[in-house]
């Protein structure tokens, strides 16, 4: 097999400076937003006693789910032995860690008492899936860190496969945990379902790969490193496959709930007359985020960079809408204290809850995204993460294409 | 470290008890308790371990529901709070007051009073005017 040559990204170029300063500015604004929320109190946000989790949680869940998905590329290369994916293992691991860091930062800075984060480490409630996630998240950093070490240090090569397997299992458990945060909420008809865990895993496949593709295209487009057309095509096919899986679990999620009489109202709300949520579900999540890109990919014989960028962007937009519909839409529907009865009170019982995200909340979320990009750029500038060339456009193209194709199917 | 500083400061103040003239400029101003003759533990002990007592007590009071301990925070406040010229209580975490004075000097943030009442009556009758 051909030796893969990894190179650091070129630093100190005007483009590099512009990117890094721009990201730092976005992060600073996000931090200022968080500080404002914490000192003033959450009344300055759109979040209320009805919509208790808002847009910061949408950003955070999106990034945390994407984090485990971003690791897939590495897993396909190592655990499932697709050699064509191996060169991208390092980037995959780095992106996974960065996304998780970004998501957790947003989540933590939205806490009512972020200064008490240490309490989450010192006090552990064994029955809380949230508490378990604290360990799954910190463990993810360690496991993926070790995995990266075995990738980058040839003297640790014999640990490469075990580390890869551990990381793959860990990411499955982690996303199961994230999905179960919602799945275990027996009180809320929009959540409370075992399907949330596999649904979140399928979501992670889509989000992670889409973000991975976008980063890859940006880096290889920006630095002029070659990428084989087959790598592009197969990545698109793989993304379409993941979208199909996501769509499948979405169908299972809703069909199951519709069949359950007490959940009829909330399903009707999300799928038929929920206003913004219905629109986001059908228009953005299902059509823009899955049906359209799948159609574009499958009718195209050779997906190019432009189309891959387009479908990956659509996947990100659709994915964000999906998380928004789950997190916000699920809360917008009031709790059913008396199923079948009409209830009202001074505490907004029985009413559809409105939510308008405020500027500081959105700034916090965007700051998290900026942190992800900042970390990826910084680390891959300092250390050799990206292969010099991706695939070989001439001699090795067929072999690479086949290997990736098998992974995709 | 902060504890050491606090101890030194407060012991210094204790040595000059009663005479404001004796207090060093810039040092925390330890106000005298408004009632009682002695604390629930000797002063040097309180200086070093008051937070341990409070930390232990909060578990007992809140989680176990035990009332009437001399280590209750409300008990600290009832003695160490001060009144202004009009006879009204001054919040114990106000600048220059018993808790705040020392903690400001030692640069140790007090987390108690984001939730706990800062005067013995805790609220009084003018609640609606509070905000």
């Amino acid at each position, binding site marked *: 097999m051909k030796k893969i040559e990894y190179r650091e990204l070129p630093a100190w170029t005007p483009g590099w400076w512009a990117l890094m300063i721009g990201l730092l500015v976005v992060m600073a604004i996000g931090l200022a937003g968080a500080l404002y929320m914490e000192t003033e109190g959450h009344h300055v946000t759109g979040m*209320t006693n009805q919509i*208790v989790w808002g847009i910061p949680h949408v950003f955070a869940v999106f990034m945390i789910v994407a984090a485990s998905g971003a690791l897939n590329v590495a897993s396909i290369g190592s655990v499932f032995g697709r050699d064509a994916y191996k060169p991208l293992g390092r980037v995959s691991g780095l992106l996974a860690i960065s996304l998780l860091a970004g998501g957790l930062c947003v989540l933590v800075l939205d806490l009512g008492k972020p200064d008490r984060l240490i309490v989450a480490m010192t006090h552990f409630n064994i029955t809380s899936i949230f508490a378990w996630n604290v360990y799954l998240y910190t463990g993810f950093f360690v496991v993926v860190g070790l995995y990266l070490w075995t990738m980058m240090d040839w003297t640790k090569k014999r640990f490469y496969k075990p580390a890869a397997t551990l990381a793959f299992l860990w990411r499955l458990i982690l996303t199961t945990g994230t999905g179960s945060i919602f799945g275990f909420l027996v009180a809320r008809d929009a959540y409370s379902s075992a399907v949330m865990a596999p649904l979140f895993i399928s979501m992670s496949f889509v989000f992670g790969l889409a973000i991975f593709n976008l980063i890859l295209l940006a880096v290889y487009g920006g630095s002029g490193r070659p990428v084989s057309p087959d790598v592009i095509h197969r990545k698109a096919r793989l993304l379409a496959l993941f979208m199909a899986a996501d769509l499948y679990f979405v169908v299972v999620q809703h069909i199951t709930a519709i069949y359950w009489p007490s959940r009829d109202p909330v399903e009707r709300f999300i799928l038929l007359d929920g206003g913004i949520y219905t629109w986001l579900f059908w228009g953005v999540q299902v059509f823009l985020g899955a049906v359209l890109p799948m159609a574009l990919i499958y009718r195209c014989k050779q997906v190019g960079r432009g189309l891959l960028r387009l479908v990956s962007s659509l996947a990100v937009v659709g994915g964000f809408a999906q998380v928004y519909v789950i997190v916000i839409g699920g809360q917008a529907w009031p709790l059913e*204290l008396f199923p079948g009865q009409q209830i009202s009170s001074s505490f*907004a019982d029985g009413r559809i809850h409105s939510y308008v995200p405020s500027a500081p909340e959105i700034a916090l979320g965007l700051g998290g995204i900026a942190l992800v990009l900042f970390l990826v750029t910084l680390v891959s500038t300092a250390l050799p993460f990206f292969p010099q060339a991706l695939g070989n456009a001439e001699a090795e193209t067929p072999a690479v294409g086949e290997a990736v194709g098998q992974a995709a199917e | 470290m902060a504890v050491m500083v606090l101890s030194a400061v407060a012991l210094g103040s204790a040595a000059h008890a009663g005479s404001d003239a004796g207090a060093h400029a810039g040092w925390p101003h330890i106000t005298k308790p408004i009632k009682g003759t002695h604390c629930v533990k000797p002063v040097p002990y309180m200086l070093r371990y008051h937070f341990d007592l409070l930390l232990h007590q909060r578990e007992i009071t809140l989680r176990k529901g035990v009332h*009437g301990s001399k280590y209750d925070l409300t008990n600290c406040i009832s003695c160490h709070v001060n009144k202004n010229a009009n006879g009204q209580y001054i919040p114990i975490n106000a600048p220059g007051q018993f808790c705040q004075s020392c903690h400001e000097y030692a640069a140790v943030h007090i987390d108690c009073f*984001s939730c706990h009442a800062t005067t*013995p009556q805790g609220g009084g009758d003018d609640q609606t005017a509070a905000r």
Partner: protein
Amino acid sequence: MSDDRNTRETAGDQTGTGGIGRRAFLGAAGAVAVLAPGLGLAAHAFEARPDGVPASSKHRWGMLVDTTKCKSNCHVCVDACNKENGLYEEADPKDTAQYIRKLTVHDPDTGYTHYLPVMCQHCTHPACVAVCPTGASFKRADGIVLVDRHICIGCRYCMMACPYKARSFDEYTEKNQKWYNPRGLGCVEGCTMCAHLVDEGKDPACVTACNKTGGGAMVFGDLKDPTSEISKRVATEQTTQIRADLGMDPGVRYEGI
């Protein structure tokens, strides 16, 4: 006599509400009850827990609400709760904490409308306690579900998990809290079943108010004491828990829903 008593009596002096501490008052009330047993209202089936004694699992505090007696235009329970616990109407009602609220329940088929107060249901298997990552949400030995604000990080997962919408998030910097109900920015809060009163052998504020000036719809007592009024009524009358299907076994029961 403990120093604690002094604290409370000082508090009484200062607020000018009669100059007697809660426990002293309780003693007086008890004496009245003995002298005039017919008064009923002042007579309690449970006693103050002495200083130094922890809450015990020998008790299981509960409430019974007879919704047929809950009137449409009455909200004394809500007012009493707000006053007792030092809650205010915030600038934005959507961000205002409500420990107890009055629910209007309308049956679209029969047109029957009735009313009931809903507060923390103090469940045997509370979802809020199960999901809390730090254990800040906890159940006391006597069944009262509370928030330990010392370790609450403000994640609001308990608010997501509670089927009764019983919890509020404190979104404002608080001042002038009641000494027995510390509350502040960034922590989740909810009905304490007036644990500070229950520990002193008194009914929660909402129950007292309902029986004094309201419809007399609420009864508070020890579900584990077979001689208590609540136990007797739960044993002989048809009582219901809200969303009993969820299996959390609320300590608050209702009649007529």
